[in-house]
């Protein structure tokens, strides 16, 4: 088993499926899937609309270990209905987060002096466009439940978001991801709220051409989010790199992890408002204007720069750390 795990590590995160990512993010051989394909908990709603189903409803949930921590893992499968959140999918995601803070409570009850490095952690690999249209209402309500569960994790369990799949992380899941403590992306990851097509519809093709993927990535891609401070770590496209990123975050104290968050307190909201005011001031036509503003005079070179060079040279916005 561990030799399989080794081969997974060097694999492209982008190319891998949700299950491979989940297995590879945990310590070797420690991943146990919960409500996996064997349970055949596929969507009861999709068949009514004539749509294909998947035994795991497009999300792999389970538990593994990260060093001394129990690691509660959710990994969305972008290839199944765009990783969208339906009733089953949503319930699995909500419950894995809930299980993590309940596990914390149990561990704390058993070991009142529970050291920080033994606390459970949650890692979610987001690859989703948000709500699944075919069961939209149930999907929507699950989003609200997730935000609620995140709040229950606060002060107890670190929640880490990972974005490196083809679909990116959009729609309601965009703000769910924003509400995690730390976000790790690869340059191929995308994070946003509104998908490019809808923006084009709202603003017109001249203002935003959804087929211009370079533009889409400049606005929502990993490098931009890193400069903005909207993702904390930018890593190469391998499962190992994401796992190392995860390790970096989980090596921090809870207080340090808490500081990684972009939102979630009055001070953080105030800081965001300051950044926003500055952006309004420079009225960027393109993200490159933001990069220049952040202190990168040769902004146009950043896009094609190799990741290590990028990380070495890039200047981030002031709030970004």
């Amino acid at each position, binding site marked *: 088993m561990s030799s399989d795990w080794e081969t997974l590590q060097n694999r492209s995160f982008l190319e891998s499926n949700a299950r491979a990512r989940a297995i590879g993010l945990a310590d070797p051989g420690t991943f146990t899937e919960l409500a996996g394909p064997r349970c055949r908990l596929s969507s009861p709603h999709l068949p009514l609309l004539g749509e294909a189903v998947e035994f795991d409803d497009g999300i792999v949930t389970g538990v593994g270990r990260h060093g001394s921590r129990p690691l509660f893992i959710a990994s969305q499968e972008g290839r199944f209905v765009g990783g969208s959140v*339906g009733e089953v999918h949503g319930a699995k995601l909500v419950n894995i987060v809930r299980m993590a803070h309940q596990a914390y409570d149990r561990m704390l009850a058993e070991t009142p002096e529970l050291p920080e490095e033994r606390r459970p952690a949650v890692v979610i690999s987001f690859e989703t466009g948000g709500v699944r249209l075919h069961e*939209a*209402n149930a999907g929507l309500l699950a989003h609200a439940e997730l935000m609620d569960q995140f709040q229950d994790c606060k002060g107890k369990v670190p929640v880490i978001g990972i974005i490196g799949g083809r679909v990116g992380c959009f729609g309601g899941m965009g703000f769910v991801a924003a509400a995690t403590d730390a976000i790790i992306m690869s340059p191929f990851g995308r994070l946003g709220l509104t998908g490019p097509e809808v923006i084009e519809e709202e603003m017109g093709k001249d203002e935003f051409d959804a087929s211009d993927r370079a533009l889409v990535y400049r606005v929502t891609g990993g490098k931009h989010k890193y400069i903005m401070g909207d993702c904390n770590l930018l890593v190469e496209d391998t499962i190992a790199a994401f796992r190392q990123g995860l390790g970096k975050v989980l090596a921090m104290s809870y207080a340090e992890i808490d500081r990684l968050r972009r939102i979630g307190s009055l001070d953080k909201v105030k800081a965001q408002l300051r950044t926003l005011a500055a952006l309004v001031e420079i009225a960027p036509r393109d993200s490159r204007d933001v990069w220049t503003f952040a202190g990168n005079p040769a902004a146009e070179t950043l896009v094609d720069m190799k990741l290590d060079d990028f990380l070495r040279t890039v200047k981030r916005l002031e709030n970004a750390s």
Partner: protein
Amino acid sequence: MENLIGQGRLAIDMIVDPDSFREGVVGTLQLTDEEFGPGAVVGTASLDGAICTIIANDAMTINQKFPVVYAGIIGLEEGYKMALAVYHSIEADRDRAPGEKRALVLIVDTPGNGAGKLEEMAGMNKATGAYQMALAEARKAGHPIVAIVVGRAISGGFLCHGLQADHVLSLSAAFNTMIHVMPLTSIARITRLDIEWLQELAKSNPVFAAGPDFFYRLGGVEELVDSIPAMRDRVIAHIAEVRALKAAGREDQLGPWGRGTLGEVRGGRTVRGRVMQTMNEEFAKVADRYLK
């Protein structure tokens, strides 16, 4: 009066004690810039004699700095502005006993979040997320939060402004209230299914259909209110109910989680519980391996 769509400010007046609403003021927060997030109306009022925070939409404004933010859309400034109001409510009552925290009343009439290039560049997801996180924190700190849909509660807009409340009320469909992710016509277009067939299907399965009735059956709305004048009383009553449940330590019956349970009771979301139970049972078998 037929409905309250686009009339968030009027709805505030109809719900709170007469002439008690002070806009822009929440605890130590004093907002004076009229151009700052004009689509979000925040302030303090008294409701049945008790102080409360009001957060509402104003659909009659346009945010001059953000061309895609109009008609009640929650943009970047609006989202953060709403979050400020929540945090200042928490701050103001920090030293009060849990049972005495002020209520937050969310008056909902929004078609969604700002969908623009600058929005995505700056991170619209953070602004709407920030507000929801603030609400969740306030709710868990003991503030009763009651939302009432008076007009539109569309998709991400409803998640942002409404679904983090302890209880969600809605004027019934008779008042043209709209609660949905996407209208059925759009779903029909995208799924290439006949609208008649979808309407028929929706009768037995509320998970994709549009309208407050379906959300009621899914447990997404606690109560449908069938008259505009009754809104005030029902909000007051729900605040009291929420307070009582909190005092009794029954938070599990409130907020998104409570609505999850309600969805099962009302028969609208029956799989959710089974999925969670399966996971819990499977984990119980291996938990010692991970938690010890």
